[in-house]
């Protein structure tokens, strides 16, 4: 199902990403759909990641882990997080078709980040809902 997001929605999403996540020191944030399309992304200007490849891999990764969850009898896992030496990645599902991915350094605790992500995800949910298929 093709879906559209207009300027107002995309600006509102960027505002949420900027205020709730970027301002607490996250290095890179992107919102994607489960097909791997990039909806919005913000970075700190020093990051030069290939967002489109990351998006494709993130969608595949999340889908693979979700499938594993079902095989072991879980509806889904509540945490998908990869810890690196300098950078870590956190995945959060938004509605059924979207993923919010944050890349952050050692300056933020995962626990605090998860609080911020949950809050941001709620706001983004409300912005996306009108565009989603019923």
């Amino acid at each position, binding site marked *: *199902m*093709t*879906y*559209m*997001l*207009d*300027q107002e929605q*995309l*600006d509102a999403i960027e505002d949420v990403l900027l205020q709730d996540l970027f301002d607490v020191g996250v290095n890179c944030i992107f919102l994607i*759909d*489960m*097909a*791997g*399309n*990039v*909806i919005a992304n913000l970075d700190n200007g020093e990051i030069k990641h*290939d967002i*489109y*490849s990351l998006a*494709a*891999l993130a*969608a*595949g990764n999340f*889908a*693979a882990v979700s*499938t594993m969850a079902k095989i072991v009898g879980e509806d889904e896992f509540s945490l998908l997080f990869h810890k690196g030496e300098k950078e870590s990645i956190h995945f959060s599902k938004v509605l059924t*078709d979207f993923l919010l991915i944050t890349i952050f350094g050692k300056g933020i605790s995962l626990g605090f980040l998860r609080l911020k992500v949950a809050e941001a995800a709620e706001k983004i949910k409300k912005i996306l809902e009108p565009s989603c298929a019923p």
Partner: protein
Amino acid sequence: MAFVNLKKKEIQAKVVYYGPGRGGKTTNLEYIYNKFKSRIKTEMVTIKTHGDRTLFFDFLPFDVGKIRGYDVKIQLYTVPGQVKYDATRRLVLRGVDGIVFVADSMAVRREKNILSLRNLQKNLATFRKSIFKIPIVLQYNKKDLAEQGIPLLPLQTLEKDLNSQLKAPSFEASALTGMNVVPTVKKIVSMTMASLLMELK
């Protein structure tokens, strides 16, 4: 699941190359990547086994250019063809907008082509998509092997096995030499775009 970004005036769509193992899906993408390197600003992503078989997927973002004032970005994916990777194929198919079915023209692969096409139909159905409605192009790959005397299936046989009901556009091709690789991708892109535009009306 194509995404239309009204702010950037951009459309993103997903095309998946499907087919039996060792049929030439990855080779198609590698050819496209090498051919359009100057236009494709990123590397091709491949997740392979040690034996060079696709383990998860290959990915190539492809900027098609402007269509009706919109920048069109097609994400090309391949799936692993080996039978045991069915669960992986299913999840790569998620959100697909167009399919290239890469059949292996070698005579010994006849059965595998048919099974793979049925597998595609089944996996599309898990996402409530119909193989008869989704934009699809058939590619009968490995035509170059004829020169080496390897028995290949005639076009008629391939069409009868794979395309008698679908009646989709088809191309005889050679991903290794590049023959009809670009026409295949051009065809699927235009079919996918046409389908999206119809949907948006």
